[in-house]
C-alpha cells in the first residue's frame, strides 16, 4: 500500500490538475499537485527506511499488462535498495521543484497544465525506477521522454522551444530504438522479460553466441550494447547528447528536475539495475567506461566557453553523467549511483539558483549581460557558491565524496580504459571547477553589464522559491558525508542484492586503497581550476578574449559544440528529407503511378468520358465487372452440375 501510494499519488495529482485545471483554478492545481507529490516524497523516505536501512526489499504485483505466448509482463512495483535510493532522489527533488515552481511560474497563464505535466513526469519516473520487468521500464522510459517533450515545448508560442522539444524526443527515440531491440533480444534469448528470471538465467548464457544482423556475436554483449544505446540517449552521452543543451528552452524548474536530477540519470539507473547482465560482458563495460569518460571531457570543454547560464549548467550535467557512467563501466555501480544521488541535490540547486538569477535579471540568460549583483541577491549568491563547491568536489561538500570515489574506482580498476577514464576525469574536474567559477564570476562579480532598467529590478526571489533552494543546499552540503559510509563504504551490505558485481571486479574495493596522489589530485585540480577562473575573470578580465583570439580554431570548435549539430544535419536530417522527397515525387508519382494506374486510368477515363457524362459512371463499370464474375461463376457452376 505504501509503495502503491508513492507511485500513484503524483498520477492522481496530474490527472486532477490536467483534467479539471479550469475548475480547480491556479491555486487548486498547486495544492493538489504539490501536496500529493510532497506526500509521496515524505513516504519515500519512510520507504527508504524500511527498504534500504532495514533491508526489506519487496515486489508488489498490481495487474497483468501483456500476455502473448511466453511473453508476460505485469504492472508491478519493485522496491529494493536501488529503487529506494531513486525514490528518495526523484520524489524529494520533484517536491522541491513543485514548490519552487509556484513562485517561478506565478505569472504564467497555463499553470494547471504545467503542474499536471510536472506531476505526470514524476509518476512516469517512478514507474521507471520501480519496474520489475523490461517492458514496464520502457513504459516509464518513454513516459518521462514524453513529459520532457511536453515541458521543453511548454511555451509553445516559441519556435525554438518547439524545435528543441521535437529534437529531444527524436534523439531520445534513437536511443529507444536500441532499447526496444534490446528488449526483443532479451526475450529472444531468455523467453522472459521479468528481471528476476532473466538475471538468474544470465550466467548460463555466458560465452554463447547469437546471430544478429548476419553475424555471430556474444549473446550478452549484443543485448547489453543495445540496451546501453537506450541509456546513452536518455542520459545524453556523446553522440546522443545534442538534445540536452537545447532542452534548456523549457522553464528552468523543468531543467532542474528533468534535465539534471532525475530523467537524465535514468540511463545510469538502468545500467545499475541491469548490472547482473552488464557484469558478464567485459566489452560492454569497457564501452560504457569509454563513452562515459569521453562525454565527461567533451561536455566540460564545451561548457567552458558557453555564455548562456543554463547551457553551462546543462553541459556540466552532461559531463557529470559521464562520470556516473564510467563509474558503472568499471563495475563501481555503487559509486555511480552515489554520484547520481549527490549530483541530484547540487545540480538541482545550481539550476534553480540559475533560475533565481534569471528571475532577478528579468529573464536574461546571457552571462555577458549580467555581473556585479552579488550584494543585491546575497542569498542566491551564497546558494550558488554552495552548489558550485559541491560540484567542484571541494572537501566536505557532497560532490567531494562521490566524485572522489568515482575517480578512485576508475583508477582502482587497473585497466587501460579505467586509467583513461581516470585521466580524462581529472582533466574534466579541472574544467568543471573552472567553468563553475567562470559562471559565478561572470554572473555576480565585476561591473554589471546589464541595462539600468534590468538592474533596477534585480531582487531576491520570494521564500517559496528560496526555501526549496535552502533545502537542496543542505543536501548539497551533507548528502555526501552522511551517506558515503552507507553507499560506498567498505561494507557493501547496504545494497543487498539490488546491485550485482562479479567477485573479480574489484574497482570499488581498490578505490579504498589508492596512492595518496590519486586521492588528492581531484581536489588539487579543482582548486587549480577555481584559481584559473579567478585569474581570468577577476584579476585579468582581458585574458579570455585574447586567449580565444589566439586559439580561434579551438575556441570555435568548443563554442560550436564540436559541430555535432551541423554534422547530424548533413548526415541525417537533410538526406532523410531529400530521400523522402525523392521517393514521393520520383517513386510514387513518377514511377508507380506513371506506369501503373495513371497510364491505365487515362485510357479508362477517355472511355468513361465518352460513354457517360455522369460523375459516377465508373461504378457501373465496377458493378459490370462483378456481374461478369458472377455470371462466369454461375455459368460454370451450371456446366459442372449439368454434367
Amino acid at each position, binding site marked *: 500500500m505504501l509503495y502503491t501510494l508513492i507511485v500513484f499519488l503524483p498520477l492522481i495529482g496530474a490527472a486532477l490538475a490536467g483534467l479539471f485545471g479550469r475548475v480547480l483554478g491556479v491555486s487548486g492545481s498547486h495544492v493538489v499537485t504539490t501536496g500529493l507529490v510532497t506526500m509521496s516524497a515524505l513516504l519515500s523516505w519512510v520507504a527508504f527506511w524500511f527498504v534500504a536501512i532495514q533491508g526489506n526489499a519487496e515486489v508488489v504485483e498490481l*495487474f*497483468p*499488462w*501483456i*500476455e*502473448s*505466448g*511466453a*511473453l508476460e509482463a505485469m504492472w508491478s512495483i519493485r522496491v529494493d535498495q536501488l529503487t529506494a535510493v531513486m525514490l528518495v532522489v526523484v520524489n524529494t527533488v520533484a517536491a522541491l521543484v513543485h514548490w519552487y515552481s509556484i513562485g517561478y511560474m506565478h505569472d504564467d497563464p497555463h499553470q494547471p497544465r504545467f503542474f499536471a505535466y510536472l506531476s505526470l513526469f514524476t509518476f512516469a519516473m517512478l514507474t521507471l525506477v520501480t519496474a520489475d520487468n523490461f*517492458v514496464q521500464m520502457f*513504459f516509464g522510459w*518513454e*513516459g518521462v521522454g*514524453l513529459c520532457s517533450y511536453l515541458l521543453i*515545448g511548454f511555451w*509553445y*508560442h516559441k519556435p525554438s522551444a*518547439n524545435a528543441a*522539444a*521535437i529534437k529531444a*524526443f*527524436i534523439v531520445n527515440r*534513437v536511443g529507444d*530504438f536500441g532499447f*526496444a*531491440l534490446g*528488449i*526483443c533480444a532479451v*526475450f*529472444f534469448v531468455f523467453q522472459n522479460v521479468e528481471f528476476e528470471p532473466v538475471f538468474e538465467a544470465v550466467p548460463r548464457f555466458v560465452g554463447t553466441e547469437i546471430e544478429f*544482423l548476419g553475424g555471430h556475436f556474444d549473446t550478452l554483449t549484443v543485448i547489453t550494447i543495445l540496451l546501453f544505446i537506450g541509456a546513452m540517449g536518455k542520459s545524453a552521452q556523446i553522440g546522443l547528447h545534442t538534445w540536452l543543451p537545447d532542452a534548456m528552452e523549457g522553464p528552468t524548474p523543468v531543467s532542474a528536475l528533468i534535465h539534471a536530477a532525475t530523467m537524465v540519470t535514468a540511463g545510469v539507473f538502468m545500467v545499475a539495475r541491469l548490472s547482473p547482465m552488464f557484469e558478464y560482458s567485459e566489452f560492454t563495460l569497457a564501452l560504457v567506461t569509454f563513452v562515459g569518460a569521453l562525454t565527461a571531457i567533451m561536455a566540460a570543454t564545451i561548457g567552458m566557453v558557453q555564455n548562456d547560464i543554463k547551457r553551462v549548467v546543462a553541459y556540466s550535467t552532461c559531463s557529470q553523467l559521464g562520470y556516473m557512467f564510467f563509474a558503472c563501466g568499471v563495475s563501481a555501480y555503487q559509486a555511480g549511483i552515489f554520484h547520481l544521488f549527490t549530483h541530484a541535490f547540487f545540480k538541482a540547486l545550481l539550476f534553480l539558483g540559475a533560475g533565481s538569477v534569471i528571475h532577478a535579471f528579468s529573464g536574461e540568460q546571457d552571462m555577458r549581460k549580467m555581473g556585479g549583483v552579488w550584494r543585491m541577491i546575497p542569498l542566491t549568491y551564497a546558494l550558488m557558491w554552495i552548489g558550485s563547491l559541491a560540484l567542484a568536489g571541494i572537501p566536505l561538500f557532497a560532490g567531494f565524496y562521490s566524485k572522489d570515489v568515482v575517480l578512485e574506482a576508475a583508477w582502482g580498476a587497473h585497466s587501460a580504459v579505467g586509467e583513461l577514464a581516470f585521466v580524462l576525469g581529472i582533466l574534466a574536474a579541472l574544467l568543471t571547477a573552472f567553468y563553475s567559477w567562470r559562471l559565478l564570476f561572470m554572473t555576480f562579480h565585476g561591473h554589471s553589464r546589464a541595462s539600468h532598467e534590468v538592474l533596477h529590478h534585480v531582487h531576491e526571489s520570494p521564500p517559496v522559491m528560496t526555501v526549496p533552494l535552502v533545502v537542496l543546499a543542505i543536501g548539497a552540503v551533507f548528502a555526501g558525508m552522511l551517506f558515503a559510509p552507507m553507499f560506498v563504504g567498505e561494507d557493501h551490505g547496504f545494497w543487498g542484492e539490488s546491485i550485482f558485481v562479479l567477485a573479480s571486479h574489484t574497482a570499488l574495493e581498490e578505490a579504498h586503497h589508492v596512492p595518496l596522489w590519486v586521492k588528492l589530485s581531484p581536489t588539487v585540480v579543482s582548486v587549480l581550476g577555481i584559481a584559473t577562473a579567478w585569474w581570468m575573470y577577476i584579476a585579468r578580465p582581458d585574458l579570455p578574449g585574447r586567449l580565444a583570439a589566439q586559439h580561434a580554431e579551438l575556441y570555435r570548435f568548443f563554442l560550436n559544440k564540436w559541430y555535432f549539430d551541423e554534422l547530424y544535419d548533413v548526415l541525417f536530417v537533410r538526406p*532523410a*528529407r531529400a*530521400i*523522402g522527397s525523392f*521517393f*514521393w515525387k520520383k*517513386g*510514387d*508519382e513518377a514511377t*508507380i*503511378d506513371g506506369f*501503373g*494506374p495513371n497510364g491505365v*486510368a487515362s485510357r*479508362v*477515363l477517355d472511355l468513361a468520358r465518352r460513354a457517360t457524362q455522369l*460523375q*459516377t459512371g*465508373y*461504378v457501373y463499370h*465496377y*458493378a459490370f*465487372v*462483378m456481374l461478369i*464474375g458472377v455470371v*462466369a*461463376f454461375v455459368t*460454370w*457452376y451450371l456446366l459442372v452440375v449439368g454434367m
Partner: protein
Amino acid sequence: MDWPILSTLTFLPLVGAAFILVVRGDAAVVARNARNIALWTSVIAFVLSVPLWIYFEPADAGFQFEERVDWLAEGITYHMGIDGMSLPFILLTTFLTPICILASWESIQTRVKEYMIAFLVMETMMIGVFAALDFVLFYLFFEGGLIPMFLIIGIWGSDNRVYATFKFFLYTLLGSVLMLLGLLWLYFQFGTTDIPELMRAGIDPFWQRLLWLGFFAAFAVKIPMWPVHTWLPDAHVQAPTAGSVVLAAVLLKIGGYGFLRISIPILPDATVTFTPLVYALSIVAIVYTSLVALMQEDMKKLIAYSSIAHMGFVTIGLFTFTPAGVEGAIMVMLSHGLVSAALFLCVGVVYDRIHTRLIARYGGVVNRMPLYAAAFMVFTLANVGLPGTSGFLGEFLVLVGAFQANTWVAFLACTSVILSAAYALWLYRRVIFGVITREDLKAILDLNKREVAILAPLVALIILFGVYPMPILELFHAPVENLIAQHELALEGLRGATNFAAVQ
C-alpha cells in the same frame, strides 16, 4: 437452433437502409430522418454486438455462433461464424459506424439520404466479411463493401474525386479478378468453398503458390502494401471525413484479415515460400512511406502514408508465425483502427471550420482549441507508438516476433520508432503549436459537444487498451496458437518433402 445473431447483426444495417429508402417528404425532413435512422440503426448494431463479446468463449479455438444454411449449391453454403481473430474486427466496425455517422452529421449536406444508405450498406458488408466462413460469401462481402466506398468518395469527395476513385477502382479490380479466378479454381478442384474445409484440403504445393499470388494481389492492394499503395493517399485525400475513417479503420484491415483467414491457413506451404517476399515489401513500406510521410504538405496524405507504414508492421507480424508476432499484428490492426480513425476525425474537425487540409495553412491552433489539441496529442502519441497507448503494444509485439524470425527485419522495422516520431510530431507542431497568424484561425472554435462525444470514447479506448489490453489479447491466444500449430505442421511437411527428395 439458437437465434442467428451473426446474420441479424450483419443484415440489421440493411434493414435500416431500407427504412431510409422509403423516407419521403421535403429535403430537410428527409435529411433529418435519414441521419436519425442511420444513427439509431448503427447504435442498435453496436449494442447487439456487445453480447457477442460477452457470450464469446475465448478459450475455444474453433468457430462460435456458427450458422450454416444451404445456399447456392452443394459446397457453397451460407456459412457464418467467428473466432477470436474476427470478433474484435466486428466490434471495431460496429463501434466506429455510429461515430462515422455522427461525424457526417453536419459536414454532409447534399444527398444525405443516399449517403446514409451507402454507409449502412457498407457496415453490412464489413461485418459480413469478418463473419463469413464460406469463400464465396467472403468474396461477395469483400467486393460488395467497395461499391459504397466508391460512391462515398466519388459523390461526396473533394475536387479531384474522380481521379481518386478510378485509381482505387483499378487497383482493387486487379486484385479482385485474380482472387475470383483462384476462388473458381478451388471450387472446381474441391467442390467446396467452405473455408474450414479448404483448410483441410491439402492443396498441391505448386497450385498453392499460384493461388497464393492471386489472393496476395487482392489482399496486398487492400492493406495496402508497397508498391500497390498509391491509391490510398489519393483516396483518403478525396474522401469525406467519415469515408477516410472507415477506409483506414476497417477496409484496410480486410486485407490483413484475408491473409489471416484465407492465405495462411488454406495455403500453408506457399505461405512459407513467400514469407521473404512479404518481409521485403513490408520493410520497404515502413522505411519508404515513413520518409515520404515526412515530406507531406497535406494532413490527410501524411496520415495515409503513416497508415501504410503501420500496415507494414501488420504484414511482418502475421508472417513471423510466432505468438507475439501474429497477436501483435492483429493488435496493430485494431489499434490502428482506433488511432487512424481518430486522426482522420481530427483532420475533419479543422477541415469543417477552415476548409483546407494544407498543413501550412494552420499553426497555433492550440491557442483557440485547447481541448482539440489535447485529444490530437493523445492520438499523435498513439500513432507514434508510445507505451501506455494501444499503439505501442502491437508494434512492440511485432518487433519481438520479428526478432525471433529474422533480426534484420526487426532492426529495419524498428527504425519506425524514430521515423514515426519525426513525421507525427512534426505534423503536430506545424498544426497545433506556434502563434496564430492567419485571420480565419483567430476565430476558430474549440470542439463542440458532438465532436467531444465522437473523440472522447476513442481517447478512452486508446489509453485503456494501452494499459490493460488483456480483454482483447486473450481473444487471440487460442486461434493464434491454432494457426501457428497448423503452420508448423506445414513446415514439417515441407522439410519432410525435401528430405524425401534428398533421399531419392
